[in-house]
C-alpha cells in the first residue's frame, strides 16, 4: 500500500519562533512511529500542525497523496493534558460519542452503528463500566483512557498520541500498550511522542528523532546512533561504559517551550552497540 502519510518540507511557527523547520518524512500505512526528541523539539507542535490546530507556514501534508481536507477527520489527536472543562456535565459515554460527530453529523441522532463503535471503543480501553459516570469524577488515568477511546471512536486514518506514557499510572500505561498492540493488528497508523527512549527502541518499528529539524528517521537501530543522539540532545547526553545515558533536563533547565507542558524528570538509558562511540 502507498505511504499513508507524507510530510514535505513542513515548517511551522509557534509563539513567534520557528518551531519546526523543513521537516520531511513518510510514514507507511499501518506503521507505529515513535516521535522522540528533547523538550521543545517540536513534537507537540508537529502533532498540532498535523491536526490543523496550527497552520503550516510552509510545506505540505498529504494523506494517501491527498491533502487532509479531502477526508472526514482523518487524524485523531490525543493531547497529553486535555484542556477541557472538567466540571462540565458530560458522562464518559457523552465524551466518547463526541468522536462520532464531525462533518455532516452535527444534527442527526446517533445510529445503532455509532453506538456500537462507541461501546467497542470503551471496551478496548477498559472503561465500559464507567460509561455513565461524569467525566470529572474519574481519576487522571481513567480520563486519559476515555480520551483515547474517543480518538478510536473517530475511526481515523492516523492517531496521534502526545506523551501517553508520561505522568500516568501503571494501569493506564498498560492499557495504552495493549491498545497499540491491538492497533497494530488492525493496521491503524499511530504516531506516539514520548520521552522514553527505551520504550521507543523496544516497542516501535519506526522512530523519528526531532529537534526543530528532522535529525533522523527510520528503524531504532538506524536512528539511535551516538551522533544522532548528540545532534538531538546535545549536552544532555553522557556515555558511560558503552551505554548512552540521556538525561532529560526539562525540569531543571528551560521551562516548557512551545506550549508543551510535558515535563518528566528522569533519565533514560539506551543501549547502543558497544564500540559505536565516535567519541
Amino acid at each position, binding site marked *: 500500500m502507498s505511504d499513508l502519510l507524507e510530510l514535505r518540507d513542513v515548517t511551522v511557527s509557534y509563539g513567534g519562533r520557528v518551531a519546526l523547520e523543513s521537516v520531511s518524512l513518510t510514514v507507511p500505512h499501518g506503521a507505529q512511529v515513535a516521535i522522540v526528541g528533547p523538550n521543545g523539539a517540536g513534537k507537540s507542535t508537529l502533532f498540532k500542525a498535523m491536526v490543523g490546530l496550527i497552520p503550516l507556514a510552509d510545506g505540505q501534508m498529504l494523506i494517501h497523496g491527498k491533502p487532509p481536507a479531502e477526508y472526514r*477527520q482523518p487524524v485523531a489527536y490525543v493531547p497529553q493534558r486535555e484542556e477541557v472543562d472538567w466540571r462540565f456535565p458530560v*458522562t464518559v459515554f457523552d465524551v466518547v460519542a*463526541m468522536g462520532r*460527530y464531525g462533518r455532516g453529523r452535527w444534527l442527526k441522532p446517533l445510529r445503532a452503528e455509532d453506538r456500537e463503535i462507541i461501546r467497542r471503543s470503551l471496551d478496548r480501553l477498559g472503561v465500559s463500566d464507567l460509561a455513565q459516570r461524569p467525566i470529572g469524577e474519574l481519576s487522571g488515568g481513567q480520563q486519559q483512557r476515555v480520551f483515547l477511546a474517543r480518538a478510536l471512536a473517530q475511526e481515523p486514518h492516523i492517531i496521534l498520541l502526545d506523551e501517553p506514557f508520561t505522568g500516568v499510572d501503571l494501569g493506564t500505561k498498560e492499557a495504552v500498550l495493549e491498545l497499540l498492540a491491538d492497533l497494530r493488528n488492525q493496521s491503524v497508523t499511530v504516531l506516539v511522542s514520548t520521552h522514553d527512549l527505551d520504550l521507543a527502541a523496544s516497542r516501535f518499528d519506526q522512530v523519528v528523532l526531532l529537534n526543530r529539524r528532522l535529525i533522523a528517521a527510520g528503524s531504532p537501530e538506524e536512528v539511535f546512533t551516538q551522533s544522532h543522539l548528540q545532534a538531538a540532545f546535545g549536552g544532555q547526553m553522557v556515555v558511560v561504559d558503552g551505554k548512552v545515558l540521556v538525561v532529560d533536563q526539562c525540569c531543571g533547565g528551560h521551562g516548557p517551550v512551545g506550549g508543551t507542558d510535558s515535563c518528566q524528570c528522569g533519565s533514560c538509558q539506551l543501549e547502543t552497540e558497544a564500540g559505536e562511540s565516535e567519541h
Partner: protein
Amino acid sequence: MDWLTEPFAYGFMQRALGASVIVGVVCAVVGCYVVLRAMAFLGDALAHAILPGVALAYLAGIDLLIGALVAAVVVAVGVSFILRSGAIREDTAIGIFFAAALALGVLLISTVDTYAVDLTHVLFGNVLGVSPSDLWLSGGLGLGLLLAVALLYRQLLVVSFDPVLGRTLGLRTHAIRTALFVMTAVAIVVSLRTVGVALVAAMLVTPPATAYLLTRRLPAMMALSAAIGVVSAVAGLYVSYYLDVASGSAVVLVATGIFLLAFLFAPRRGLVLRSFVFRRKNRRLLTTR
C-alpha cells in the same frame, strides 16, 4: 380551589405568568451555558452595557429596543473577539466591556442638554406591566432561541467542553462561541424589556446552578433548569399575590429558595448529606479500632 385561580383572573396576572414562564424557560436554558462558562454577571452587565445603544437610538429618534439590541450584539461580538487570544477569561472580558459601554453611554447622555428621559430604566420592564405585544415578541423570540439551541446543540457542547476537539473536527469554534454570546445577549435584552433586570439576571443563573447540583448530563441540566424556572415563576406569582409584594422579586426569591434546598440536600453534592456521610464514615473508622 378558588385560591388557585383567583390570582390569574386578571389579564395582567395572566400575562405576568406567561411572560415569567417564557423568560424563565428561555433564560434557564441559555443560562446553562452562562453558568458553565462562568459568565454569571452577564445579565447585569448587559443591562448596563446597552446604555450607549439606547442613547444613540434616542438621539437618532429610532426605537430604543433596536438600539439596545445593537449594543448588546456589539458587546457580545466584542467579548468573543477578546477571548480569541486566550489570555483573558470570560468574566474579565465581560467586565471590561460592561464598564466601557456604561461609560460611553453616560458620556453620550451628558451631551444631551435638555430634559432627557431616564434612558436606562425606560428599557427595563416590569413583570406586572407586560402588554400582549410584549408577550408575543418574547414568546416568538424565545421559541426561535430554543430552536437555535437545539439545532446547534452538539456544536455548542463540543465548543464549550473541548474547543481543541472542536477545531480538530472542523468546527469554527470562534464563530460558534460568538453565536452563543449573541443569542444570549438577545435573550437577555428582550427579557429585560419584558420583566426587568432583577428577574432576568436571576433566571439566567439560579435555576441552572440548582440544576447543576442535581444532574449529571447537560440535557438533564437544561430540562431541570427550565422546570425550576417555571415552578419559580408560578410559585413566585402566587406568593406575590397573596402577600401583596413586588412580583418579580418574589419569583427571584423562590428560585433562590429552591437553590438553597438543593445546595443543602442534593443527593451527592448537598452540604448536609455530605457532612452526614463524612461523619458516619469517621465514626465507623473509630469504632473498629
